[in-house]
């Protein structure tokens, strides 16, 4: 084991705490590999948003109509990429629920891995999957030649969708610590469908009845959806959008941290 001649007592001084709380690329690589192994995850993260884009983003009737600095097809592409990224990151975060159920989180507590490093790995893994969703939709969009906007806008929109989906990695973690494993994935599908509708991803919020609009503006996907379309539409930022995003980020991370701390008992 070591070059030190065998001493009678235990070698305590030679033992070190790993840097970064145990965070490392080998573990991260394995986390990502696990995620890609789950067929349902791949369908939801990659196939579903692409199908949605083909169904709604390529329709000849309206997609060539102008929208801000581009066209409707580009607008739909951004919405669908956001939907996919949000599903991906929420699923990625909520995987902690399965890990708790299988006792893996408990096993990890018998290693030097710190809770912060664990969460950081979960979030990064979720972001990788979210990035795949955005990339898949944008690549199909590019191949179809229907979405029209400048290269700068492609990049700005893609990156803002991707970074924005971080909010939902926190949401996934929160749900993962809150809900039992058996039905967390199904519940997430339903919750995100409702939030996406209220956030205006499928139909613009402005087309809702006034009462529904008032409620919709408080939901967690509303601010993010408006923000990620800002580069394309070039219509400026309403102060309520970033406030919406930041407020929900605080709620989700706070909730996740609180639940995580309570999760110290046997699972």
């Amino acid at each position, binding site marked *: 084991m070591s070059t030190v001649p065998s001493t009678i*007592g235990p070698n*305590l001084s030679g033992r*070190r705490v790993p840097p970064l709380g*145990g965070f*490392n690329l080998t573990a991260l690589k394995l986390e990502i590999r696990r995620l890609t192994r789950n067929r349902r995850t791949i369908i939801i993260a990659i196939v579903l948003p692409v199908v949605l884009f083909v169904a709604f983003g390529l329709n000849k009737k309206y997609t060539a109509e102008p929208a801000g600095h581009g066209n409707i097809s580009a607008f739909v592409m951004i919405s669908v990429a956001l939907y996919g990224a949000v599903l991906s990151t929420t699923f990625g975060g909520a995987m902690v629920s399965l890990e708790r159920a299988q006792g893996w989180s*408990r096993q990890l507590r*018998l290693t030097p891995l710190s809770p912060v490093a664990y969460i950081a790995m979960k979030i990064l893994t979720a972001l990788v999957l979210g990035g795949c969703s955005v990339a898949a939709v944008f690549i199909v969009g590019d191949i179809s030649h229907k979405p029209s906007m400048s290269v700068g806008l492609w990049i700005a929109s893609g990156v803002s969708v991707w970074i924005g989906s971080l909010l939902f990695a926190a949401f996934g973690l929160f749900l993962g610590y809150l809900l039992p494993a058996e039905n967390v994935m199904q519940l997430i599908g339903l919750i995100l469908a409702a939030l996406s509708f209220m956030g205006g991803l499928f139909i613009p919020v402005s087309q809702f009845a006034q009462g529904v609009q008032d409620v919709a503006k408080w939901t967690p996907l509303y601010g993010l959806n408006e923000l990620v379309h800002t580069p394309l539409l070039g219509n400026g930022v309403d102060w309520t959008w970033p406030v919406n995003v930041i407020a929900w980020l605080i709620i989700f991370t706070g909730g996740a941290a609180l639940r995580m701390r309570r999760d110290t008992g046997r699972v």
Partner: protein
Amino acid sequence: MPLPGVIGQTRAMTITSAASGARGTSGTTPLAVDLTALHKNFGHVHAVNGVDLQIASGEIVAILGPNGAGKTSTIDIVLGLSQPTSGTVSVYGMHPRHAISRGLVSAVMQTGGLLKDLTVRETVEYTASLFSHSQPVPEVLSSAGITEIADRRVGKCSGGEQQRLRFALALLCDPELLILDEPTSGMDVEGRRTFWSAIRKDAEQGRTVLFATHYLEEADAYADRIVLLRHGLIVADGTAAEIKSMASGRTVRVTLPGASEAMLTGIPGADSVEIRGDTVLVHATDSDAVARYLLTQTIAKDMEITAQGIEEAFLALTGDSAPGTATTGAI
């Protein structure tokens, strides 16, 4: 709760045992485990009720007790998985969490703790990556006997294979202290024997081992020292031989129609009395005195006298009829 004589003896034995267990190490070597006045409450349930336990480096200690005796609660505290309600815990002179971060302590848990969608090798690689130093993965796979199944998904492995994987994970960091919580539950006899011979072989290199079990034979066969736990308290602590002698004595069985507890509590030399219809069982250290009394002072007949094995010792010390509880018997 009053402290009966057995516990008095226990305390004395603890000290002897800790001192003899030091095995010539210098006085500056911190204890592997040091628990003082440890309490753990879950609401109104007192899972651990004042445990003092010192384990020196190199000892192989079994925590033996029936379900609900506080074994797992105690182990969870040693591993830093839960916080004691009161009392202190230190592992190699430091907080359990710090000992774990340095790879000084690891554990094989009862069940679960594995991801079904990783392969055996990936699970080992993942865990190895978390430590600042760890044994080479192929070496650990081979010494745990899981090289052939390294590419199999964990979910497709049998219970025994999963347990070998857990064992491999625990040895990755080459811990000074290895903790096993009911490690062989659900294993067949053969699996159990193989598992223990691996542990035994491993411990020869000087590793300290602390394991919880409710199998007497395991504690008897594999531990240098047995700590008996009941209702969150240590009721006995010593070598297997010492434990046996503590609860030694014999059982005197007679047919005694119309026996009543009042009539029998005063029997000289009796530790406890059990009445089953016309049959009376008297557990005694001085069975001769009991026999003499029963045959001369009562109408008892059909006398049988049997010696106690470790099984009876265990039951006598941990069962609810054991000395120290208010049910039957007195000491």
